[in-house]
C-alpha cells in the first residue's frame, strides 16, 4: 500500500512538494490543534464527567505555566541553555502537566480544556514573538506559495488578537461557570475563531482572506447564540448570521470582480499587475473595491454597515462581546490595511475618499446614537462604531508619504489600545450583569460606586480611557490618529474627530454619573449575598487590562515603537 506512494513514477508527473514553513503558519496551526484537542477530549470524556469544577490553582497553573515555559525557552536560547532557564522551562511544563493530569483524573473536562486552550494561545504568542524577531532582523517574507505573508503588520495584529483571545478565554471561563453552559465547546469555538483571525492577519491572498473571514465569522455566529438561557442571545446570533453571511457574499463578489480585473487573487501579484492597469479599463476593479469595502466595513462595524453592532453586542454573551470588540475589529482592520494600503496604494485616489467618508459617518453616528441609549452594553456598542471611525482616519492617511507610514502605525496602535479598553470595560460589565446578564441598564449601575468601589473605579478608568482623557492609553491613541491626519494636512477630519470625541464623552460620563450617583432608596452598606462575584479569571483580566491602559498612558513609548515597526506591509 505504501509503495503506491513511494514508488517512483514518471519524473514529468512528479509535483514539486511544497515546503511547509512552520514558523510562518505556526500560530494558527497551534491554535487549531488546541481546538481539535479540546474537541477530542470532550468527545472522549463525554458522559463521564460534566463538572464545571475549576479550582483557582488550575487557572493559575494554566495561565502561568506556559508563560513560564516560554520565558525559560527564550532565556535558554539567549543564555546558551543555562541550568536556570532549563529549570524554568521544566517548571512551566510541570505545572501545565500537573494541572492537566489532575483535571483529567478528576474528570474535570472543562478544566482540562482550559489548560489546553491557554497553553495553545500562549504558545502561539511565543511563536509570534519569534516571528517578530525574524521580521525585525531579516525582513518580511511570504511562504506557502505566496498565500501567507509574515510582515510587521501581520505579527502585530496576530499579537493583539492572541492577547484578546487570552482575555476572552478567561472571561469565558468565568461566564461558563456562572451560567453552567457547555465549557469545552465554547473554548474550542473561541480558539477556532482566533485561528481564523490569525490566518486573516497574515493572509496574502484574497481567497485566504475570505476563508479566514468565514472561519472566524462562523465561529462567532455560534458563540453569539451560545447562551441558551437568553432569547436575546439567539436573536443576536440570527441577526449576526444573516447579515454576516450577506456581507460575506458581497465581499466575495468583490473578490471575484477584482480577480477578473487583475487576473490574480494574490495581493503581491495584483499589485504588480496594477502598474499596467492604472489609467486603463478599471470598471470591474472599482466595483470590486466598493464591494470589498462593504464586506470589511461590516466586520469592523463602520457606519453605514454598523446596524448589526448594537443588537449583536447587546445580545451576545458579554465575554463574546468583549472578544468581538477586541479581536474582530483588529483582524478585519488588518485585512483592510493589507488589501487597500498594501496592495492598492497606487489607486489610493480612488478608495481614500470613500474611506474618509466612512470614517466621518462612523464617528458621528457612533457618538450621537450612543447618547440616547439606556443600556450600557449598547452604549459601548455604539461607541465601538465611533472608535472604528477613529481607526479609519488612520487607515485613510496610511498611504501618505510624508511622515512615513504614520497612518498605519496610528491605526494599529489605536486598535491595540482599543482592545485593552474594550475588554476591560466589558469584563466589568460581565461581572455587574450577574447571572443571566440581567443587569445591564443604566439604572442597574446606580450606586455601584458605593457597593463596589473598586469595580466602579476600574470601569471609570476604562471609560475615561475610551473618552481619551490624558494619562490613559486612550488619549495617546487618539493623539496618534489625529496627529497622523494633521500631518497629512487633513485638518477637517481631525476636527470632526475631536467634536465626536467631545460628544462621546457625554456618553461615558452618563455611565460614570450613574455609578457615582446614589440610589436614593438603596442601602449605603453592601448587603451580604448581594455582592458581585469577581472570580480569579476575571480578576486577572481586569487587573491586567487596567494596568496596561495606565501603563501605555504614561509610557506609551514601547508600544508606539512596536506599532511603528509594524508598518511593513509586504505587498507595499
Amino acid at each position, binding site marked *: 500500500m505504501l509503495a503506491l506512494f513511494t514508488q517512483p513514477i514518471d519524473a514529468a508527473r512528479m509535483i514539486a512538494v511544497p515546503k511547509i514553513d512552520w514558523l510562518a503558519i505556526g500560530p494558527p496551526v497551534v491554535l487549531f490543534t488546541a481546538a481539535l484537542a479540546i474537541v477530542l477530549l470532550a468527545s472522549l470524556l463525554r458522559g463521564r464527567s460534566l463538572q464545571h469544577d475549576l479550582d483557582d490553582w488550575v487557572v493559575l497553573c494554566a495561565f502561568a505555566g506556559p508563560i513560564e515555559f516560554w520565558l525559560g525557552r527564550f532565556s535558554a536560547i539567549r543564555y546558551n541553555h543555562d541550568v536556570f532557564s532549563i529549570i524554568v522551562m521544566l517548571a512551566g511544563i510541570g505545572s501545565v502537566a500537573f494541572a492537566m493530569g489532575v483535571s483529567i483524573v478528576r474528570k474535570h473536562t472543562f478544566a482540562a480544556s482550559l489548560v489546553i486552550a491557554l497553553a495553545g494561545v500562549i504558545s502561539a504568542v511565543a511563536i509570534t514573538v519569534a516571528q517578530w524577531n525574524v521580521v525585525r532582523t531579516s525582513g518580511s517574507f511570504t511562504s506557502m506559495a505566496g498565500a501567507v505573508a509574515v510582515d510587521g503588520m501581520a505579527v502585530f495584529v496576530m499579537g493583539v488578537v492572541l492577547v484578546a483571545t487570552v482575555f476572552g478565554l478567561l472571561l469565558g471561563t468565568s461566564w461558563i461557570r456562572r451560567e453552567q453552559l457547555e465549557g469545552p465547546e465554547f473554548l474550542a469555538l473561541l480558539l477556532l475563531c482566533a485561528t481564523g483571525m490569525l490566518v486573516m492577519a497574515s493572509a496574502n491572498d484574497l*481567497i485566504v482572506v*475570505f*476563508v479566514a473571514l*468565514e472561519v472566524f465569522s*462562523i465561529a462567532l*455566529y*455560534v458563540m453569539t*447564540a451560545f447562551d*441558551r438561557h437568553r*432569547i*436575546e442571545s*439567539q*436573536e*443576536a*446570533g*440570527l*441577526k449576526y*448570521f*444573516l447579515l454576516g*453571511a*450577506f456581507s*460575506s*457574499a*458581497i465581499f*466575495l*463578489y468583490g*473578490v*471575484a*470582480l477584482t*480577480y*477578473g480585473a487583475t*487576473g*490574480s*487573487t494574490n495581493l503581491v501579484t495584483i499589485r504588480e499587475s496594477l502598474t499596467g492597469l492604472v489609467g486603463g479599463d478599471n470598471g470591474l476593479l472599482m466595483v470590486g473595491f466598493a464591494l470589498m469595502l462593504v464586506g470589511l466595513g461590516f466586520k469592523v462595524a463602520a457606519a453605514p454597515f454598523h446596524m448589526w453592532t*448594537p*443588537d449583536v453586542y*447587546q*445580545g451576545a454573551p458579554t465575554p463574546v462581546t468583549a472578544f468581538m470588540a477586541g479581536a474582530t475589529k483588529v483582524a478585519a482592520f488588518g485585512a483592510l490595511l493589507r488589501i487597500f494600503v498594501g496592495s492598492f496604494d497606487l489607486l489610493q485616489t480612488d478608495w481614500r475618499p470613500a474611506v474618509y467618508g466612512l470614517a466621518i459617518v462612523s464617528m458621528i453616528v457612533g457618538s450621537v446614537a450612543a447618547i440616547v*441609549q439606556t443600556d450600557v452594553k*449598547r452604549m459601548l456598542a455604539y461607541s465601538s462604531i465611533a472608535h472604528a471611525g477613529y481607526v479609519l482616519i488612520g487607515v485613510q492617511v496610511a498611504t501618505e508619504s510624508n511622515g512615513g507610514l504614520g497612518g498605519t502605525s496610528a491605526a494599529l496602535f489605536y486598535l491595540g489600545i482599543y482592545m485593552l479598553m474594550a475588554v476591560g470595560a466589558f469584563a466589568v460589565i460581565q461581572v455587574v450583569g450577574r447571572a443571566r446578564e440581567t443587569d445591564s441598564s443604566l439604572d442597574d449601575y446606580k450606586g455601584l460606586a458605593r457597593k463596589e468601589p473598586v469595580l466602579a473605579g476600574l470601569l471609570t478608568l476604562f471609560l475615561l480611557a475610551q473618552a481619551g482623557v490624558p494619562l490613559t492609553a486612550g488619549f495617546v491613541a487618539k493623539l496618534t490618529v489625529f496627529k497622523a491626519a494633521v500631518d497629512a494636512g487633513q485638518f477637517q477630519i481631525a476636527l470632526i474627530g475631536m467634536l465626536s470625541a467631545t460628544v462621546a464623552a457625554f456618553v461615558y460620563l452618563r455611565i460614570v454619573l450613574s455609578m457615582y450617583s446614589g440610589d436614593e432608596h438603596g442601602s449605603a452598606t453592601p448587603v451580604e449575598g448581594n455582592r458581585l462575584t469577581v472570580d480569579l479569571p476575571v480578576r486577572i483580566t481586569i487587573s491586567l487590562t487596567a494596568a496596561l491602559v495606565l501603563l501605555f498612558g504614561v509610557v506609551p513609548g514601547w508600544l508606539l515603537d512596536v506599532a511603528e515597526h509594524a508598518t511593513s506591509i509586504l505587498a507595499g
Partner: protein
Amino acid sequence: MTPLLGAVKITTEYYLAVGALMFTIGAVGLLIRRNTLIMFMCVELMLNAVNLTFVAFAKRLNDAHGQAIVFFTLVVAAAEVAVGLAIIVAIFRRRQGVTADDVDLLKG
C-alpha cells in the same frame, strides 16, 4: 437550415451577466422576503452567483485558480448552511415561526 440562435456566440460575458443577475436576485430577495429560511437561501444564491462569476473569469483568463476557488467557496457555504440552520432551528423551536420581522427584541 440554420438554428434560430445560431448567430449568437455565448461568450464569458454572458456568464458574468447571469452571475450578476443571480447575485442581484439574491440580494433583493434577502431584502424583501420575510421567511428566515428563504432569506438564507437567497444568501446561498448570492454565493453561487459568485461561484459562477469565478468560473467565468477563470475561463476568460485561462487560469485554473478561479476554478479551485469555487471548491473553497462551496465548503464555506456548506459550513454556513450547517450553522445557519442550527441557529434558525433553535429560534424556531422557541418562537414557533421563522418570520424574520418577528425577531426584534433588540432594537433602538
